[in-house]
């Protein structure tokens, strides 16, 4: 017989909370705690971190022993492309200017959708690039570059 790992929403969420709490304790290990009267910068973070670890353990145990709702299918395509579209915008905005960043952002993001028609999205991204440049740079005068070179 094969023992199955109790993987469900609760057990994983609990472990995630424990990880966050432990990380906060580790990275905050040098913050002095002080006393209740004279609280150091570490007092409140340590308190929260320990509470978080405790609650995380409780949730994880409950999930492991009693089970919990299944996590369900992860859809990596929208996650990946939506995040990538933001990172592309961040990388391009200072280097290549707003229109280029906007086209990249819209086009890459659109790939994350379930029905991707590249011609349509190309037209959309160009239109939005023109519209956003006109609105944000010309009309509102935000400090963004059109062409950096």
């Amino acid at each position, binding site marked *: 017989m094969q023992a199955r790992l109790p993987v469900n929403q609760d057990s994983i969420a609990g472990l995630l909370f424990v990880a966050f709490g432990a990380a906060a304790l580790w990275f905050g290990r040098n913050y002095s705690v002080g006393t209740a009267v004279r*609280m150091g910068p570490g007092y409140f973070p340590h308190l929260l971190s320990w509470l978080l670890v405790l609650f995380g353990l409780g949730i994880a145990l409950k999930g492991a022993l009693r089970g919990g709702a299944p996590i369900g299918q992860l859809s990596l395509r*929208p996650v990946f492309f939506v995040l990538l579209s933001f990172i592309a915008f961040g990388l391009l905005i200072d280097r290549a200017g707003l229109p280029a960043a906007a086209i990249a952002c819209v086009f890459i993001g659109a790939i994350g*959708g379930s029905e991707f028609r590249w011609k349509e999205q190309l037209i959309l991204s160009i239109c939005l690039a023109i519209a956003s440049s006109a609105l944000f740079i010309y009309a509102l005068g935000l400090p963004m570059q059109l062409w950096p070179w």
Partner: protein
Amino acid sequence: MDLIGNFIMGFGVALTPANLMFCFIGALIGTLIGVLPGIGPVATLAILLPVTFYLPPIGALIMLSGIYYGAQYGGSTTAILVNMPGESSSLVTCIDGYQMARQGRAGAALATAAVGSFFAGCVATVFLAVASPPLSKLALEFGAPEYFSLMVLGLIGAVVLATGALGKAIAMVLLGLLFGLIGTDTNSGLLRYTFGLPVLSDGVGFVPIAMGLLGITEIITNLEKTEGRAPIIAKIGSLWPTREEFQRAWPAVLRGTGLGSILGVLPGGGALLSSFASYALEKKISRTPERFGRGAIEGVAGPEAANNAGAQTSFIPLLTLGIPSNPTMAVMVGAMTIQGISPGPRVMITQPELFWGIIASMWIGNLMLVIINLPLIGIWVSLLKVPYRLLFPSILLICAIGVYSLNSQPFEVAMTAVFGLMGYVFYKLGCEVAPFALGFVLGPLMEENLRRALLLSRGDPLVFVQQPISLVLLIMAAILLLLVLLPAFKQTREQAFKEV
């Protein structure tokens, strides 16, 4: 009378052409967002937060409040016509509103929702104006222990009303509080959890967090549900309710207004809770409960009045105590902070024109909404035909530009993406992000007040139960927690969340 004088001053502020325009734009955008399914009011507020940076403080807040209550109106349109809630507080409106639409009474349902909301909005605005001054006077007496206890109560309220499991909601609050502490410690000047990144020395910005966790996560989860959206739009028909419908509707509107006004003030309350509670109440007291779910007009009138009243009165804790009672109000705190206003009881004294101007603008905004909504309903309906595959990339771009425009920091754009990923993971794990957002806003305040309270009491933690106001607040928090743990209440709570 003082109140009338204040109102006149408020209208003087709200009726300036610029502020009227901000109010109108807010109400218009709010309706638009409310109508479009797939992006809720909190996400919109978070997305549009950077825009307000360039507006004067009063204009910014007037516009943001307009978006919030405008979305309550718009949400009901989609709920009734296509059985799709534009945003969560219209969930219950779907049940009977759509049934009415199928019976050819969509026009009557829409008119009832709009007029009921308008009435509720007017009453709640007066309630807000009357209840706020005494509350803020009380709040001026608050010392550090009272503030700390108040925040505990607010956070517990948020946890109790989160739909997920209690333990996970508490853990989310704790995590939010921790994220709120990132940056320079105000007391010692020590940099906490910045990992040597100078960008983080002022803390994580509220905009990347709110936009990532609330906005981006919502877009990703929408993309995940990939059923082809071909809404069948019901015919609108006559806008006038019949005499019988009218007689059924108006008492429900009154009850909904009362219920919503009270529930909106509670920590964790607001539009969503009010609409659920009102629907339950109408069904309970009706002599013919079997009509509910088959097009009972009370099931539209009550909740719609309640969610609008709740939306308005949830401003009370924010404007008087400086404590946000729900994630939307947390975004408002963010907006006020961007403008250099620290929300709290002093706002009413130091900036009366801001306080009363916002209140007056709510009244004007509600009137505008009736006008925007009823005659223009056809335009809103045609908006439903814009496919999501064109809509969401445009929203992504607005988000990215919005974050960047705040500080011209590409790093913050990337950070938004990271928070979006985090929000998605939490969504998959059944953890709600609303408690996190509240914790994040309250983190530094809570630490500051805990520190001060314990300093004054020489380290004695009993100070929190020795001060009468603080004790009362803590007892209220304890009662809330106990209620959730009671088996009978626990069942109804789970059922209430499941039913709709």
